[in-house]
Every structure is written in C-alpha cells, then in structure tokens.
C-alpha cells in the first residue's frame, strides 16, 4: 500500500501539481486505503479497487488544470483575447440583446463609438449569431447544453466593448450558466435573466432594472438606478454604494441580500427565508411580506424609515442606529 501512495505522489509531482494539492490528495488516499484495510480487504483486492496511480494522477492533473484556468479568467481583456468583429454605432443610442447558455462574457466601455467583440479560446463561429442591425446588437450562442458529452467545456469567452459615453436604450442579457461582468455601462432599461451564472456589475448608471436569477449570485457596486425589481430563488445579492432613486422590489425564496452604503426609496421585500442585512443602508420606506425572512439594518445616522406594511410569520424588522 505504501507503494501505491509513493507512486501516486511521484506521478502527481511529475504533473507539476502544487504541493498542498498533493498533500491533500495523498491524505485522502491514506484515509481510504485505511478504510479498505479496516474492512478486511487484502492488498491485492485493494490494488484492484484503487487502480493505476498513473491514470489517477492524470485525471487529477486535468481537474486541477481546469480549476486553475477557471480561476485565472477574471481578467477579461488579457493577451489571449482576439478581436472578432467591430460595429460602428451611428445613432445616439443602441440596444443590446444577448442570449447565451454557458460562455462567460464581460462588458466594458470602449473609447470611441465602436462596439468591439473579442473572444478567447476556441471559437466555432458558425455556432454563434452576432450582428448589429437597426441599432440592435444581437448575440446568440448555441442553445444546447449537453453536460454528458461536453462536461465543463467553458472554453470560449467573450468581451464586449460598448461605447463609453452612450446610453443604451434597452440592454437585455439572458444566460443559463455563464458568469458575466458588466462595468462602466449605461442603459435606460437593463434586463437580466440567469439560472446559474454569477453576475458582477460595477460603475453603472441604469434606469429601470429588472433581474431574474435562480441560483446565480449578483454583486452590484457603484451604481445609480432609477428602480430595481429583483427576483431570485436562492442566489444571494450584494450591494456596495448603490443608490436607487425609486422603488426596490425584491422577491426571494432563500437568497439573502447584503446591502452596504446604499439607499433606496421604498424597499418592498417578499421573502420566504431570505434575509436582508443592511449596513449603512437607508431606505425611506419598508414593506415586508415574509415567512421567516428578516430585515435587519444597522446605521450610524438616524433617518426616518417608515414601515408601511409588515406581514410575516416569524420574520422581523430590526433597525439599529
């Protein structure tokens, strides 16, 4: 058994895996082999059950490589991005409609009046529709996600540069699994719908915002909004320096909201068990409809927060100044 562990360690080292990863894997295997021995398995039986260290190391190195490349893709404008298409915006406004299943996307401002689309990874051009017609940018990805044949094949990513000083009229984004980053974008209507993808939105100015998520988390920072209507199942939401001039409607099952240095007119919260935790969060009015979700706000400054309606089973509103 010692040989199995030694071989495994050697093979993992050959694959240049990090020493802490190797340590972790070896310790897991020590435990499992120990369990097998406790069960009374012979050495031969154990060898049979555990298989070849070489194959194991190969698969583990793949897992680790995949994980590392996923972690490194935060930078959405690195060297590995190539320009795919450019469109000139020749009116005062434009619309965006993006619909994807699992390709990660990043939106950021461009210096001129151009919409530039970059990609990284392997792009099958025929599988995507990308066009700019009648002031509408349309981008549609392949519909079919087949997890069994195409496990985690998130290999192509896109970056969109959107004209910096222009406000889009309608900005629609739909995705199933894609993680998405928006920065420096302006839009009158901003509509998002995701299932699992996480969204990071920063330095933005929006009119009416509507988003819909199942499991994806949303981080919104440095944002000016006219109104926000948020619907989530279990995704969490985080605010940092967000000002909503009008209504802030939330419909959540178990997703929590952490709101810091933010404000809104009326907070209308419908929740089953999702909580709202505010820190320096200043709503003018609050409505709570909950089963067990709470609103708890801790502020330094004392302002009038009017409680319009509260109907809940065990949820509560607590305001500490």
């Amino acid at each position, binding site marked *: 058994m010692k040989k199995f562990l030694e071989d495994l360690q050697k093979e993992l080292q050959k694959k240049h895996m990090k020493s802490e990863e190797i340590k972790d894997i070896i310790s897991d295997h020590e435990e499992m082999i120990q369990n097998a021995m406790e069960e009374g398995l012979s050495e031969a039986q154990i060898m049979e059950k555990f298989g070849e260290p070489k194959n*194991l190391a190969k698969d583990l190195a793949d897992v680790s490589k995949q994980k590392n490349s996923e972690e490194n893709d935060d930078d959405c404008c690195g060297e590995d991005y190539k320009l795919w298409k450019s469109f000139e915006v020749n009116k005062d406004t434009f619309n965006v409609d993006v619909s994807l299943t699992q390709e990660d996307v990043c939106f950021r401002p461009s210096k001129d009046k151009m919409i530039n689309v970059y990609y990284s990874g392997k792009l099958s051009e025929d599988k995507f529709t990308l066009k700019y017609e009648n002031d509408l940018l349309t981008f549609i990805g392949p519909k079919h996600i087949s997890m069994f044949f195409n496990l985690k094949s998130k290999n192509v990513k896109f970056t969109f540069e959107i004209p910096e000083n222009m406000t889009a009229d309608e900005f629609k984004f739909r995705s199933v699994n894609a993680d998405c980053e928006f920065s420096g974008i302006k839009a009158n209507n901003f509509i998002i719908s995701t299932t699992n993808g996480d969204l990071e939105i920063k330095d933005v100015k929006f009119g009416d915002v509507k988003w819909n998520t199942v499991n994806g988390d949303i981080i919104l920072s440095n944002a000016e909004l006219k109104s926000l209507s948020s619907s989530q199942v279990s995704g969490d939401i985080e605010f940092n320096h967000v000002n909503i001039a009008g209504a802030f409607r939330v419909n959540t099952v178990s997703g929590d909201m952490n709101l810091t240095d933010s404000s809104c007119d009326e907070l209308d919260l419908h929740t089953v068990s999702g909580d709202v935790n505010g820190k320096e969060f200043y709503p003018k009015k609050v409505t709570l409809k909950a089963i067990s979700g709470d609103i708890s706000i801790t502020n330094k400054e004392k302002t009038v927060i009017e409680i319009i309606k509260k109907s809940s089973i065990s949820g509560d509103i607590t305001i500490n100044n």
Partner: protein
Amino acid sequence: MLAFVKLLCNNRYCVTSGTEICLGSDSMNAQFKRGIIELCVLSVLAEKDMYGYLIINKLSEFIDVNENTIYPIMRRLTLDGYFHTYLEASTEGAPRKYYQMTEKGFIYYLKLREEWDSFIGGVYQIINQGGKKNEEIFRRFAKRITKETHEE
C-alpha cells in the same frame, strides 16, 4: 445501464465476442462515462453525507468502476463548490473526511438528473422499438437476412 452492457458482453449473438465492453474500458466514451459517474456520486450524496471510501463502495456495488475514476470526480465537484467536507471521528480509527452536498450541488444534481432522464428515456424509446428481447430481434434479423439472400 450495466445490465445492458453486460448483456452486450455475454450475449451469444454478439458478433465481436471476446472484445470486452464494460464501463472500465476505454471503448466507451470517457467523457460520457464520467458524466454517468458524476450523476451517481451526486445521487448518493443527495441522500446523506458520506466519507470517500463509502462512496466508492456504494458505487462499485452496482457498477464496475474503480477508485481512480471516482475520486477525481469527487475532487472536482468539491472544488466547484458542490460539496463541502468536514472531519468526523470514527469508532474504528482515524477521523474520516465526510462529503456533504451544498445547495448549489443539489440544484446541479437536479439539472443533471433531468438531463439524464430525458436522454436515457429517449435512448430506450429507440432501442426498444423492436421489442425488449434480443432473441426476437435476432430471429427477425436472421429471417430478413435469409430472405434477402434467397432473393439474390
């Protein structure tokens, strides 16, 4: 699934008798196999928390699969946040690392399960069109073949 594969292996009508087809060999698409094992791991952990060796035992009770296939999948699912782990003392010896499914993992499991059901349901629709008994299918096939040879 395994019943089906075993049938192929042992079947006397199998033309390539001697070539072993089973879940452990490379003859089956490795990705496909990994997808199935992934669903199996998710399914057992959806029911209760388990330690590594127990998961492997549970799976190899029903399908022909080695630790070296299962463990990398468990590790990836853990790194992806579908499971988290904790140590718990055992009566037999050293503490064991238990795997616990997260909410994210459960949602992923439901999705994968749905996809699998619809896929395998479709496959069975296709392969059972000629009935479920290989003997019958073979008899029909043999009849057709002889008929065609006569016509020639």
